[in-house]
C-alpha cells in the first residue's frame, strides 16, 4: 500500500500495460518536443525574443521621430504613421495608450519595435489574437508580416494600473 513500507523487492522493471503506456507516453513527449524546433525553422509564427536594451526616453525619441517623418494623419488625437515596407516601425506602450496608430501593407514585412515608457505591458492584437510581452528598457523587435487587410485593435493584457482597460491602440492593414 502507498502508506506502508514497500516489500523488499519493490525495485522491478515495469510490465504489461504499464510498460506499453510508458512507451507510448515517451514517444508522444518526443513528438511534442520535436515540433518546436521544426516549427522554428519551417513555421511562420515564432517568438524569437529579439530585443535590445533601450532607455525609455531614447525609445520615446525614436517613436517621435517616426511620427514627425512618417505621419499620414490622425484619429482621435492619435497620429497615424505609415512606415516603409521592409523597414522599421515603432509602437510605444505607456499608461494608458498605445501610439502611434500604424498603417501597414498586407504581405509586407516590418521590423516592429515595441517597448514601454513605464510599466510592463502586454501587446495583444485583436481579433487576430497574437500576444507578446513588453518590458520597459527592452526594445522588443517583432518581424511581422500582416496576412490580412482590415482594422485591428491593440489592447494591453498585462496589468498596468487602474486605467489598464483603457489602454488601446490600432493597426490598419491595406
Amino acid at each position, binding site marked *: *500500500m*502507498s*502508506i*506502508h*513500507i514497500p516489500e523488499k523487492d519493490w*525495485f*522491478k522493471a*515495469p*510490465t*504489461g*500495460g*504499464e510498460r506499453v*503506456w*510508458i512507451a507510448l*507516453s515517451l514517444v*508522444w*513527449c*518526443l513528438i*511534442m518536443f520535436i515540433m*518546436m524546433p521544426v*516549427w*522554428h525553422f519551417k*513555421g*511562420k*509564427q*515564432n*517568438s*524569437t*525574443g*529579439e530585443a535590445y536594451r533601450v532607455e525609455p526616453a531614447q525609445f520615446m525619441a525614436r517613436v517621435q521621430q517616426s511620427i514627425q517623418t512618417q505621419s499620414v494623419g490622425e484619429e482621435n*488625437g*492619435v497620429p497615424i504613421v505609415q512606415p516603409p515596407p521592409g523597414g522599421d516601425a515603432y509602437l510605444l506602450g505607456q499608461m494608458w*495608450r498605445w501610439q502611434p496608430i500604424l498603417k501597414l501593407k498586407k504581405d509586407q*514585412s516590418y521590423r516592429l519595435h515595441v517597448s514601454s515608457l*513605464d*510599466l*510592463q505591458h502586454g501587446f495583444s*492584437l*485583436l481579433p*487576430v*489574437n*497574437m*500576444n*507578446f510581452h513588453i*518590458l520597459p528598457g*527592452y526594445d522588443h523587435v*517583432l518581424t*511581422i508580416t500582416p496576412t*490580412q487587410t482590415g482594422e485591428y*485593435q491593440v*489592447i494591453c*493584457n*498585462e*496589468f498596468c494600473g*487602474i486605467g*489598464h482597460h*483603457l*489602454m*488601446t*491602440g490600432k493597426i490598419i492593414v491595406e
Partner: protein
Amino acid sequence: MSNHLENQVRTCDTTGLPVCLNAQKFIRLHGVCAVVFLLIGAVAAILLALTRWPAVHLLNAEWYYRVLTLHGLNMLIFWILFIEVAILYFAATTLLNSRLFSKGVAWAAFLMMIVGAIMVDTVVFQGKADVLMTSYTPLKADPMFYLGIILVAVGTLTGVFNFFATVYIAKRDKTYEGSVPLVVFGAIAAAVIAVVTLLHGAVVMIPTWFWSMGWAEAPDPGWYRLVWWGLGHQSQQVNVCAMVSVWYLLATLTTGAKPLNQAVCRTAFVLYILFINLASAHHLLVDPGVGASWKIWNTSYAMYLAVLASMIHGFTVPASVEVAQRARGYVRGLFSWLTNAPWKNPGFSAFFLSLIIFGFIGGITGVTLGTQQINILAHNTLRIPGHFHATVVGGTTLAFMGLIYYVVPLIFQKEFYARSVATIQPYIFAAGITLMSIGMSFAGSAGVPRRHWDVEFAGANLAAGFDSGTHLWLGIMGMGGVLAFVGLLTFILLTVAAVFFGKSNKGRAMTPWATPKSLVTEGDAEAAHDERSPGTMVLVIVLLAAFVVYYFANWLALTDVWHVR
C-alpha cells in the same frame, strides 16, 4: 522501534497508525488557518467571477484589481502552503512512525507564516499593494507587502526543514525498516522542489523589498520575471507532487488500492525533481531578451520528461484502483470496477474527479499552451486562468478537499454533520470549476485578456471589444464560477462545523464514508488476484487521443495568424 516520547503519541482508532501529538497539533493549526485563507480566497473568487461576467460587472476597477491580488495570494500561496506543510508533518510522522523533530521549529515556522500572511492581506486591503500577486516591477507596493511574502517563504522553508529533520531522525532511530512508503517518497519530492522554489523567492523578493525601501535600484523587469517564475511556477510543481501523493493516499484509504509497481511511481517522482526547475521558462515564451533555443529547451522541461512523469502517474493511480476493485470481484466488462467504485465517498469522488480534471483539462491545456510558438495565441489571455483553474483548483484543491474529509475525523477526531451534503459537494465544485475553466478557455481563444476589468473598453480613446459569442463564453465562465463558489462554500461550512462543533469520535473508529463492497469471499480474492488493468488502458488511450487532437488543433490555429519572427 518508534522514537516517540511518553504521552506524546496515540494510536489511531481507525487505522491503527501512530499519531505524534505534536505533529497533530500543528497539522490542526495549519489546517484551520488554511481553511480561513480558503474562505478569504473564496469570497474574493465570487466577486471576481461576478465582475468578469460582463452582464454583471460587479466591482469597480480599483476593487477588482485589489480583490484579484487578494484572491491570487490567499488561494495560490496561503491556502496551498498551509495545507502542504500540514501534509509534510503528517507524512513524516505518522507514516514513518516517528515523532516530529522539533516543536520549537514548528512554532517558528507557523508564526512566520501566519504573521507574513496577515501582513500581506492587511496591506492589500488597505489599498497599498494593488500590484497583483506577481508584483511585476516597476509596479511598486508597500514594503510590508514584500516583507510579508518573505516571511511566509522563510516560514515555509523552516517548516520544510522540520520535515527533513523528522525524516532524518526517523531513519537514524530506525523507526521503520526498508524504504519509505510511496506517499512519503512523494512528500520528500515535493519538499525538495519546495526548497529550490523558496530560494528563488528569496532571491527575487529581497532586492525588490530593498528597492521598495529606497535602498536599491529597481530590479530589472526581465530578470524579475525570470526569477519570480522560478518561484511562481515551481511552486505549482510542489502542488503537483503533493497532489499526486494525496491521490495515492486517498486511493489506498478509499479503495484499498496499492501501487502496481513502486519503482515506476518513484521514478516518476524523481523525474519531477530533476526537470521541474526549468519551469520558469514557459511564462517567458513571448518575452523579449530570451532566445528561441533557450525557450524551447526549458519550456519542454528537457524534452517533456516531467510531463512523462505526470502521464505515468495518470496511469498508475487509476490502475491501482482498478486492480483493487477487480480483486473485490468487479471483473465484468471494462468499467464495472469504476462504476462500482465508492462514488458516495467524498474522499473518493474528490480524488477521482481531481484526477480526471487535472488530466483531461489541466494537463492537456497546460502542455499545449506552454508550447513555445502556441503561446503566442495564449499569453496573458483568459486561456491561462482557464488552464490553471483546472490544475491547481479542479486538481490540487479538490484532492486536498478529499483529504480533509479524512483529516477531520482522523486528526481532529471530529465527525462531519450533513454527510449527504458532503457526498455531493465534490461534484458541485468539480462541475463549477470545469464549466468556468471551459468558459475562460474559449473566451481566451478569442483573445479576451486575463487580469482585465472591462472587456468592453468603455471610455477608451480607440474602441475595442468582443463579439457576442465571446460574451456567451464569459457568461458560462461566470455561471461556472458561481457554482464552484457554492461548492467551495459548502465545503468550508461543513469543515468548520465539524472541526468546531462536530461530535468527537475519540476512542472509537471514525464513522466510515461509503466503502466498496466485496463480491467475493476471502479465499476467492486470493485466487482471482490479477494485475491487469484493461479499463485504465482504455481511459488513458482516450486521454492521449484527446491530447493529440487538442495539441494539433492549436498548431492549426497558429497557421491562421500573421507571420512573425
